[in-house]
């Protein structure tokens, strides 16, 4: 800002400017949840404990960031969870039943994932149907395909044995290995997650594509009117989500060397939850990648913290629900304070 201060601007401290960022509320939520569980369980705040809850947060985070981009662009993707299973299944089946080297099998899975993303996007853009319904359709269809094809090819509902496939060790080291740090093993996936978050933030804030994503989510008609290629932007977003699903699917397949036909089922909403906790609006046009990542951390902490605290598994979901509500409320209060009456 080089312009002289306007007399109609009340003191806008750095603090307030920071607080207006969509993710800062989520940060407060994360701090609250962390403090809560850290005070309940020593292991939770130990290095090993942190490594432990960062592990699920990493794969969830990668997906949450992709879904956040899509949600900022005004669309949903319910097929993303199952797609992580599909890509894993393709990789494992090709590598173990058809003797493909793992990198080749992974590329084939990526191609399939991008095709699914492309079709999702194309149908949404062409028919104008809500993406909620379209991707619900793909979700169900993929679920059927995962089960039907796996059963048809292998006779069971899970395929394994990836360990023996060519190129396994390298692929595993790159995607599913661990890094020792402070006496605990951290998953490499955490690095991938940080990378994806940084990349997504850069795209959102610093590129034309990012501008278009906000625009198509904020008001698609208006965006089209000024010449934003709304259709292409949305298709690209669906393909990005599919790409993220492929990354997560590969990470999980390499790590567990086997995939079940129902892998990823039910995760689609966890992604959306993480994105919303991180400040994304369900109506589109607002949100951030960093926020979605922090949402994933909150979810991961609450999820694992309850186990660390040793609470009864029967009540698990109760505590999880209460945690989520409290985290979002904390988030909300901070945002309220920052924005005051801006609606």
């Amino acid at each position, binding site marked *: 800002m080089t312009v002289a201060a306007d007399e109609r601007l009340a003191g806008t401290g750095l603090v307030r400017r920071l607080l207006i960022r969509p993710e800062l509320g989520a940060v407060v939520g994360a701090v609250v949840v962390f403090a809560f569980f850290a005070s*309940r369980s*020593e292991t939770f705040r130990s290095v*090993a404990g942190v490594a432990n809850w960062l592990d699920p947060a990493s794969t969830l985070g990668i997906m949450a960031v992709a879904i956040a981009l899509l949600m900022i662009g005004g669309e949903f993707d319910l097929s993303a969870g199952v797609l992580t299973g599909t890509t894993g299944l393709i990789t494992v089946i090709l590598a173990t039943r058809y003797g493909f080297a793992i990198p080749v099998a992974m590329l084939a899975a990526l191609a399939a994932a991008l095709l699914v993303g492309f079709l999702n996007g194309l149908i949404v853009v062409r028919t104008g149907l809500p993406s909620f319904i379209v991707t619900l359709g793909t979700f169900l269809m993929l679920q059927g395909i995962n089960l039907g094809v796996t059963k048809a090819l292998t006779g069971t509902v899970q395929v394994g*044995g990836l360990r023996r496939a060519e190129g396994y060790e390298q692929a595993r080291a790159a995607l599913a290995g661990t890094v020792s740090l402070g006496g605990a093993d951290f998953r490499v996936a955490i690095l991938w997650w940080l990378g994806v978050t940084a990349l997504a933030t850069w795209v959102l804030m610093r590129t034309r594509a990012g501008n278009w994503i906000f625009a198509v989510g904020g008001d698609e008609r208006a965006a089209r009117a000024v010449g934003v290629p709304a259709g292409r932007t949305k298709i690209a977003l669906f393909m990005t989500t599919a790409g993220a699903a492929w990354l997560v699917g590969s990470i999980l397949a390499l790590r567990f060397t*086997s995939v079940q036909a129902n*892998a990823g089922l039910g995760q689609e909403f966890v992604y959306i939850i993480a994105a919303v906790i991180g400040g994304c609006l369900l109506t589109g046009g607002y949100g951030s990648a960093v926020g979605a990542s922090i949402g994933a951390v909150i979810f991961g902490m609450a999820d694992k913290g309850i186990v*660390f605290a*040793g609470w009864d*598994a*029967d009540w698990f979901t109760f505590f999880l629900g209460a945690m989520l509500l409290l985290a979002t409320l904390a988030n909300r209060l901070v945002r309220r304070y920052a924005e005051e009456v801006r609606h």
Partner: protein
Amino acid sequence: GCSSGQGGQGQAGPSSAPAGTAPAAGGGNFAVITHAASGDAFWDVVKNGAEAAAQRYGVTVSYQGDGDPARQSQLIDQAVSQKADGIVVSMANPDALKESIGKAVTAGIPVITINSGADRSREFGAITHVGQSEDVAGRGAGEQLKAAGVGKLLCVIHEAGNVGLDQRCNGATEGLGGTVERLQVDVGNLADATSKIAARLQSDTSIDGVLALNPAVAIAARDAVADTGSKAGVGTFDLSGDVVAAIQDGEILFAVDQQQYLQGWLPITFLTLYKDNLNTVGGGLPVNTGPGFVTKDNAAQVAELAESGTR
């Protein structure tokens, strides 16, 4: 009820050297980690068994379960970082758990596998295995149905892609030796399950047997058979008060009873013994808990037990 925070108790120290002193009563801290979401009727009995044993021996048990192998393995990792004194794992997907179980074994934590995964148990370094795989139970059910004269069976899967359910149906196929058709229903919506089973019975009248894999679905199957006037016999896995009553009334032929209460009770017993006294039962050979069958003959005896959640 809520067990106390284990964070603190974890400090009891690595239990790899369970003090060669006299068996100390209590103080153990065990984790039971299964591949079923909480609320599942079968696994709830396992949980009851484990908790009853814990109470008996004065140890703590934390029960967790998740059908997603990735999350199950994370639960094992958590138990390891909490330095549990012993871990009980059901292995529906052994490959996926290999790494985490290996970590536990390396950390010197005794592991007992339950239910499925008997063949990989020893390979992974578990001290023993309790229970048998779902195929065996399924085969038993198939044989029972065959004995009842069933030629064409409908196997009702209430959770698509669930490995355990798939294994039960596969086992039943083997045991029956006839045609087995599968049907997918949603256990959360019994009205829908009923009418789906009825729809299948209506459109294929040659089906003369229905195998439910869950007691609630068994009731739905019974209703469907009654609604359509089909003469199909119904068999089921696992018990509930309603199922036992239906068996007594002759509406359901039998229920496969793995006596899964033992799959909760025994591992805790074994782990306590191992911790206090370094005992391994049977030199690590699998301990079978079933399958047993509840039929019209013995239904009366188990009726009450089923109501109270131990059978």
